[in-house]
């Protein structure tokens, strides 16, 4: 753990001494809870339709697959016409595209970003590496199964999948959302202990709170 994250006593500019514990002071440690759907089915259907037609992707390219997302913004593929947009902050995004291999170091950042996203949120695993390790099957530093660490709604196979495959993946994800099956955030909350245990098994220097939104 880094020195600045450790619990210590600090002397303020006014001479007062106080204790800081960055892991507790800067983050909230309450675990996620299962968020019920709207009371009325019609309202929930409306919301699900809106969610499916307005997918905001977190602009976080975790691996080489990130290069396949860029063409989606260009005139040739133009994902904007399907309601897909990119947001620069996890707070406002709904979809996390894990683009390709995920090293242990990146996994740590991915978990933090994922937990900052708001319920409902979706995860798409892009490329073979997220499914079974792909060509990094014997690597000492990349995870092999994404669904051990985050609830995955959809995998897009390929190495790398082309942008067309991504568009098809978005279309399938829309169907999932509209039928109300994409409840990854609630699944994460339900099996929180299991996911945390898996994450901590591979991340050796766990220097963040268990749940950091």
């Amino acid at each position, binding site marked *: 753990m880094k020195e600045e994250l450790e619990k210590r006593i600090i002397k303020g500019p006014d001479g007062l001494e106080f204790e800081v514990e960055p892991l507790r002071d800067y983050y909230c440690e309450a675990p996620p809870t299962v968020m019920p759907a709207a009371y009325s089915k019609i309202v929930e259907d409306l919301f699900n339709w809106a969610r499916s037609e307005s997918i905001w992707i977190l602009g976080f390219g975790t691996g080489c697959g990130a290069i396949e997302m860029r063409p989606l913004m260009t005139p040739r593929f133009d994902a904007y016409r399907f309601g897909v947009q990119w947001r620069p902050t996890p707070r406002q995004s709904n979809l996390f595209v894990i683009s390709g291999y995920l090293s*242990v*170091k990146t996994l*740590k950042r991915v978990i933090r970003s994922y937990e900052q996203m708001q319920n409902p949120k979706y995860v798409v695993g892009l490329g073979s590496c997220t*499914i*079974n*390790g792909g060509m990094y*099957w*014997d*690597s*000492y*530093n*990349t*995870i*092999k*199964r994404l669904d*051990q660490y985050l609830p995955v709604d959809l995998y897009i196979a390929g190495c790398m999948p082309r942008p067309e495959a991504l568009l098809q993946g978005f279309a399938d994800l829309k169907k999932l959302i509209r039928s109300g099956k994409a409840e990854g955030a609630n699944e994460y909350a339900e099996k929180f202990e299991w996911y945390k245990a*898996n994450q901590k*098994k*591979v*991340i*050796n*220097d766990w220097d963040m709170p268990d749940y950091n939104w």
Partner: protein
Amino acid sequence: MHELYTKLKQYFPLGELIEQRDNLAFITLKQEQLRPVILHLRDKENYTHLVLLTAVDWLEDNIFQLTYLLSNRANATDIGLRVMISRDSASMESIHDIWPTAATYQRELREMFGIDFPDSPRVNDDFILEGWNDIPPYRRDFDTLKYSEQTFSQRPGRETKDPAEHMKQKLYPDGA
């Protein structure tokens, strides 16, 4: 390249010269000769650019080979200086005072090969790996497959085929 080699040989005891191309050659050196040769090349022969610093693990001979690749931008020639150090408690003199960028390479070598560079800035900090708790992963006695099988959970049902055999089977099924 030969001229340079003979010129250098007047001042320093050198090992063999391997000429890869017209503009690329490697010279093997003793560990303690490295600093004077580098300084001479930088200040007198205009090899002002450190292209890279890397290591090779010769497990069978129990040595690490460090390669310092220097470049002369004026006449576009590269010269590689090879230094052999022992694999046991591997340690090498730092050259971060000659080229500050070397500190980054040395940090990487420290993490990936476990070669120590005393006095190099931040050499013991994490570079790429975080919380690594095994032997340095680029050492050849580190078994990455075994490590990854132990550490990461695998998805069952994965088959691995030898690409050469597989393509042969596929293209020439009757063994022609």
